[in-house]
């Protein structure tokens, strides 16, 4: 009797612990999901109604390049269908990536830090503790996905479509959480677990893009969570089968994770970390070298993901121009709607290069967030105790991050150029480089914001650092899709980026953004020098 009551109390305590760790970011993600959906569905009349007639929008959406980017369009003549097409992929990526990062943070991350040793010394087993966390994380993504559905129903769209769409969003996120839980059992480190789970999502996204862009490979979408979400076709077909496949996949992966959890040692993964190895002393001689060394592995992962994405973009470059030469009527319509350069390879790649600012900006913020994490858990203490000033250490980290950013934008340009070259699309390497390097101010704003937070509000470094990229991008999506006052989109740095290489760079705005970033970084350095170190 006592034992049963005690076990229940222990489980409840672990549930509360998990809840405390996820509730705040879960609220933010839910609010963003609901907010973006609300603004786009409310703004449907003003954009789809006036800018282009529905037939023209459908023609635009039949383009393989646009399909690759935004997914297969359907029911664009309804507010629900338009909202799903415009925001579905973005929100699915947001929910699933957050799901992965939150899962590895509260499970493998807590275990790696040793905080779970105490927890697991109690009467609960690893599967039981993981089960409580899984329940809380699942509830969090259910709430976030449901928020989108409720907004759509409230906006008067058919409840059947809203339900299918919300269920799809939730299931994609549940699959992501289950995948992260599985990789957290296999890999012995949080970074390894996050990286593997994000790689699964990245491959899924590529499969969705190829499946949408190339008709013959349409079946690939059945293998991807994002592809399955698209196959539901809410508001037109409202198909159930893709949802069932997604649910089955999430269940299977979740069950595998729970089963594996009982078969391993605490703090160890199924993949054993090597017990010893000869020293590798490269880049250990200076703090700058060490910052580069710590970045090298994550940079390789980011380069692979960004390279694969932009290779695909390059490979699809000609499909856009071919389509427009076959449809001269559409080229006129698109030009009237402001898509003037979309018909050229340069215009198409330019609009995609702008997107590059989001992942590269997140990369920059993540490096500074990692720097704060190393300060908080004491890894940096031994370096702060060396005869090296704080400014010097932060400079080393900043320079390494800038180097990583340069690598990423160069990889994106080279991959796009290579893809375009393979399909004989006219895109010189110099034009591709000009396009990807042009997004630098947004990335620098992320880096500057992250350094500012590091100096004055170090625990918010990641959140503040990604704001210019993710916040700016979402604002841009909203501004495109809803009738907002003119000053609102002006806050977004994306508004001030020219579509290079289709247009010539807008240098004044470019330099002003760089200036703001430098100012933020300088203020952050001042704060960092003055404050107490954490941990």
């Amino acid at each position, binding site marked *: 009797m006592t034992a049963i009551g005690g076990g229940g109390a222990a489980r409840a305590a672990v549930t509360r612990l998990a809840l405390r760790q996820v509730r705040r970011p879960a609220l933010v993600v839910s609010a963003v999901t609901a907010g973006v959906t609300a603004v786009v569905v409310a703004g449907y009349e003003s954009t789809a109604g006036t800018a282009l007639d529905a037939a023209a929008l459908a023609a635009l959406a039949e383009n393989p390049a646009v399909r690759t980017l935004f997914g297969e369009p359907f029911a664009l003549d309804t507010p629900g269908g338009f909202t799903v097409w415009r925001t579905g992929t973005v929100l699915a990526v947001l929910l699933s990536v957050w799901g992965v990062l939150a899962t590895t943070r509260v499970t493998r991350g807590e275990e*790696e830090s040793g905080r779970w040793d105490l927890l697991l010394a109690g009467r609960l087993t690893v599967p039981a503790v993981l089960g409580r966390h899984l329940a809380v994380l699942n509830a969090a993504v259910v709430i976030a996905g449901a928020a989108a559905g409720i907004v759509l129903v409230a906006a008067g769209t058919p409840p059947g479509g809203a339900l299918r769409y919300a269920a799809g969003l939730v299931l994609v996120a549940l699959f992501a959480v289950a995948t992260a839980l599985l990789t957290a059992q296999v890999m*012995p*480190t949080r970074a390894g677990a996050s990286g593997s789970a994000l790689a699964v999502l990245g491959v899924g996204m590529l499969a969705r893009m190829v499946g949408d862009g190339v008709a013959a490979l349409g079946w690939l979408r059945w293998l991807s969570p994002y592809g399955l979400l698209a196959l539901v076709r809410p508001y037109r077909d409202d198909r159930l089968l893709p949802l069932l496949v997604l649910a089955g996949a999430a269940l299977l992966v979740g069950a595998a994770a729970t089963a594996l959890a009982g078969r391993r040692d605490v703090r160890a993964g199924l993949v054993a*970390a*090597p*017990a*010893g*190895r*000869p*020293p*590798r*002393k490269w880049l*250990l*001689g*200076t*703090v700058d070298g*060490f910052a580069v060394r*710590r970045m090298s592995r994550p940079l390789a992962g980011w380069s692979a993901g960004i390279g694969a994405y932009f290779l695909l973009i390059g490979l699809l470059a000609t499909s856009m121009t071919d389509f427009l030469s076959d449809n001269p009527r559409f080229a006129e319509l698109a030009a009237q709607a402001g898509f003037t350069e979309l018909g050229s390879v340069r215009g198409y790649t330019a609009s995609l290069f702008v997107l590059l600012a989001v992942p590269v900006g997140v990369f920059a913020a993540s490096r500074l967030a990692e720097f704060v994490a190393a300060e908080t*858990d*004491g*890894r940096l*203490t*031994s*370096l*702060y*105790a*060396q*005869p*090296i*000033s*704080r400014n*010097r250490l932060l400079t080393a980290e900043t320079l390494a991050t800038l180097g990583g950013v340069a690598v990423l934008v160069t990889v994106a340009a080279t991959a796009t150029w290579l893809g375009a070259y393979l399909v004989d699309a006219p895109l010189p390497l110099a034009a591709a480089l000009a396009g990807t390097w042009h997004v630098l101010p947004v990335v620098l704003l992320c880096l500057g914001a992250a350094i500012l937070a590091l100096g004055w509000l170090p625990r918010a470094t990641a959140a503040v650092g990604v704001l210019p990229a993710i916040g700016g991008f979402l604002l841009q999506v909203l501004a495109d899709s809803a009738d907002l006052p003119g000053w609102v989109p002006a806050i977004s740095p994306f508004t001030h980026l020219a579509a290079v290489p289709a247009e010539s760079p807008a240098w004044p705005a470019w330099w002003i953004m760089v200036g703001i970033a430098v100012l933020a970084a300088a203020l952050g350095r001042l704060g960092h020098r*003055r*404050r*107490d*170190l954490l941990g």
Partner: protein
Amino acid sequence: MPGSLVGGRVLNNLSEAAVHPPAIRTEHLSKRYGSLLALDDLDLTVDAGEVFGFLGPNGAGKSTTIRLLLGLARPTAGQAWIFGTAAADVATAHQRLAYVPADVTLWPQLTGAEILELLGATGPGVDVAYRDELVDRFALDLSKPGRAYSTGNRQKVALIAAFATRAPLLVLDEPTAGLDPLMEREFRRAVNEARDTGSTVFLSSHQLAEVEAVCDRVGILRAGRLVEVATIPELRRLHRTEVLVRFAGPVPELTGVAGIDGVQVDGAALRFTLTGPPGPALRALAGADLTTLTMREPTLEEIFLDYYGEGSR
């Protein structure tokens, strides 16, 4: 000859302070975290070449003091100097010190050898031969990655890195909490070697036997305030000496005698504690017929408990 004149001696002392400033000096050093005054007006001087023990119960402000000395935290008031350099100027001050934190966190993916390489290359210098010797003496396997080390082994990595610098000042924050007795003996040896080569050691510790064995002077901290700084013999003099006297004749009356406390009569034996100069007690005993007189000086542990435990009653 310079000491023959008073003025000359003063001048000599002044130039002595400029050429050989104290290893650690603090003036009115204070740190406040919100409403908690973690360190209150600390004035402390640790001379070069000294092994200084820093004692206090958990939460007394020892680690706060060390973080301020290292420039990891900024003082709310007051200032600290390391060999005459402001503690905030870490690029200069840390050229002459090495530090072992209480809770050592290593980079999980770097092996012990790689961590020693990194700290050696970025630190104030390293005596490679001595480092290799210490690795041997502390029996540390350098091929393991940081995440695979136990608490004690993590501490060994930090201790080896610190001692191998041969820095003029070693700041050690509870460095032996995870070490076994064999390794603790090696630690004491290393501290003595550092002292022999002229280094200053600032040792915060709960291991009172260790402090007693290696330290020249100790400072005792209570609730953020420094309550005592003295050599260990001085501390003993300031504290209760336990006295056992056996008598052949009648036992004299000792209550009320200055310095005597806790008198226990056990047949023909008398047990009491003595604080301060022993003159009055000896005079009171002079008329009696003593067979034996045993005096036992208190251990540091008893002194420590005096400050924080029974003694504060």
